[in-house]
């Protein structure tokens, strides 16, 4: 059987990569798209050879197996709950899962109560470089892990990403969740405390573009994380994800996007990196389709995983306001 999958909103640019992965998968069909921006929705429907629906309910009435939600962050909850209510089997929600812990918790509970599988889009999990790092760390290559230094930086985004009313936050919320999720996989421990220095001097916008977090974990591991939108406009690529894992027996550095051609283009007047590393979205979408088909997809991040990461990011805002570390609330 072919799984019928729909995409709700292309506000987040990752939706295009998900659409391409769904369209390319022989086990699934892109049954339709909805977008609050009709022109964008229609253009995407044309691009991926599917139907645009101006009404979420009309699209949900098409007997969908799965839904992908890639709207502005503040709309995640409404769309996820609407899809769950309509009886899809599984939902993949773009990160961050929500802009408040209460909303993230509500989404997880809402789906659980209806036996709908909720997944969070954390594609970095599927990076072969990260998988190799994870395997080495779990195999004891660095001995006992003592510290992790992470960074996930990018160029300044525009549009709704810098509009707090739609994004819920800037660089801290946008990037912390990825790295926090990778730390969770590496350590299997919960964060206990977060410290953060933030700022907004790159763009002078209302939301922060600078984020330096320090995270303490159960068991004593400490980690820092640079989430800043600090790459200049002419940086040769979009940004980076790097992780330094320090243990009693040595250190491993991972640079998830290091597999690049260096391209010097006289016509465009640019020097840029063209990444030839394995894409992550194809594997992630394949796992989501397994989940939708009722199979196990243990590598795919769950709603709980998304919630855990959101909690760390939001604690960072509290710390930045206080200038002191803040405990990560548990169990709410």
């Amino acid at each position, binding site marked *: 059987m072919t799984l019928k999958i729909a995409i709700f909103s292309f506000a987040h640019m990752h939706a295009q990569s998900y659409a391409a992965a769904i369209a390319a998968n022989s086990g699934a069909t892109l049954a339709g798209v909805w977008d609050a921006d009709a022109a964008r929705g229609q253009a995407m429907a044309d691009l991926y050879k599917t139907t645009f629906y101006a009404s979420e309910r009309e699209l949900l009435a098409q007997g969908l197996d799965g839904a992908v939600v890639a709207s502005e962050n503040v709309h995640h909850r409404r769309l996820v709950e609407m899809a769950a209510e309509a009886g899809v089997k599984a939902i993949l929600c773009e990160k961050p899962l929500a802009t408040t812990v209460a909303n993230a918790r509500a989404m997880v509970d809402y789906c659980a109560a209806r036996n709908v599988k909720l997944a969070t889009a954390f594609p970095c999990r599927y990076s072969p470089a990260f998988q190799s790092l994870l395997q080495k760390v779990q195999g004891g290559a660095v001995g006992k892990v*003592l*510290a992790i*230094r992470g960074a996930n930086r990018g160029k300044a985004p525009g549009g709704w990403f810098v509009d707090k009313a739609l994004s819920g936050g800037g660089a801290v919320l946008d990037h912390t969740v990825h790295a926090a999720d990778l730390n969770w996989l590496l350590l299997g421990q919960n964060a206990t*405390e977060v*410290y953060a*220095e933030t*700022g907004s*001097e*790159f*763009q002078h916008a209302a939301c922060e573009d*600078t984020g*330096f977090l*320090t995270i*303490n974990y159960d068991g004593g591991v*400490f*980690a*820092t994380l*640079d989430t*800043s939108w*600090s*790459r*200049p406009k002419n*940086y040769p690529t979009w940004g980076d994800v790097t992780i*330094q894992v*320090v*243990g*009693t027996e*040595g*250190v491993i550095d991972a640079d998830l996007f290091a597999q690049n051609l260096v391209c010097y283009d006289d016509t465009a007047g640019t020097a840029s990196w063209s990444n030839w590393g394995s894409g992550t979205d194809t594997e992630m979408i394949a796992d989501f389709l397994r989940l939708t088909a009722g199979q196990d997809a243990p590598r795919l991040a769950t709603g709980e995983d998304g919630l855990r990461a959101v909690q760390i990011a939001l604690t960072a805002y509290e710390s930045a306001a206080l*200038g*002191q*570390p803040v405990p990560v609330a548990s169990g709410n």
Partner: protein
Amino acid sequence: MTYRVALIGAGTMGGVHARHWNAMPGAEIVGVLDPRADAARAAGPAFADWDTLISQSKPDIVDICTPTPFHREYVEKAAAAGKAIFVEKPLSRSIEDCDAMLAAVEAAGVPAMSGHVLRYFPEFAAAKRAVDAGKVGKPITIRTARMAGFPDLGGRPNWYADPAQSGGLVLDMILHDFDWLRWTFGPVTRVFAKGLYGQEEYFGDLDYALVTLRFASGAVGHVTGSWAHPGGFRTTLEIAGDAGLIEHDSDRSAPLSAMLKTKGGAGGVAVPESPMAPTEDPYYQELAAFVHALQNNLPPPVTLQDAREATRIALAALESIETGKSVTLS
């Protein structure tokens, strides 16, 4: 004139200094004090005690390269004897000692410079020039990293492994970064740090620290210090501003990389090398800068006050590691 130099301490750093003093026109080593007579003799004319050294070798400059706990004693002695003083970093393990040294130098009216040599490393000097020239616009986030193995003294008693004496890598190694950052980006107002310092089960073989700084300018800094990297040495630097970015990675700027067969024919390890002209060597440069200041009656380019401020940042980082709280610097 030729400046007569007395070297106090002929260990790792003392040996480096001796090499450069001996190569420098206008300077000569006239006396060396070190409890290890062989090491002292290798660096220059050896003396058995301070009083004999001073009275017989008649130095103009006292260059103090002892382990940190001996700095105060020799700075005070050299100041009382009216000598120009070069003292290695860290100035001291405590602010009280720093203040005592500052007071001694001021009372004696002698010129004094501290060995914050990172300012003379060409990549860091060039980065500061680029920042000063506005190449990144307003600096907003700055990251530095200094990664090496735990210091090995080749069987000698390892004072680095005693946190009370060395302060670990926070006070001994990334103090360099703190000084360079303060020099380039201005005063630091808040420090938060995590590290292995004080964790007895690891410290001694390993140290690792991640330090976050807030500058008065609003910029945020992050310093990685590692004595947990087995073998090798690597530094990285990144300055992001609102109009540009500067990156440096020592692994990517080594003009030489040798990979040679070992005797048995097995594979070797790549050994990168980043050679500098002898007079461009940062350790030569800092000593030459001190001599230049003395010759021209100028203030030394790195003062003991600078050294005290860098020490204050490092001590705040250690306090933060111990208390788990951020530390505000006035």
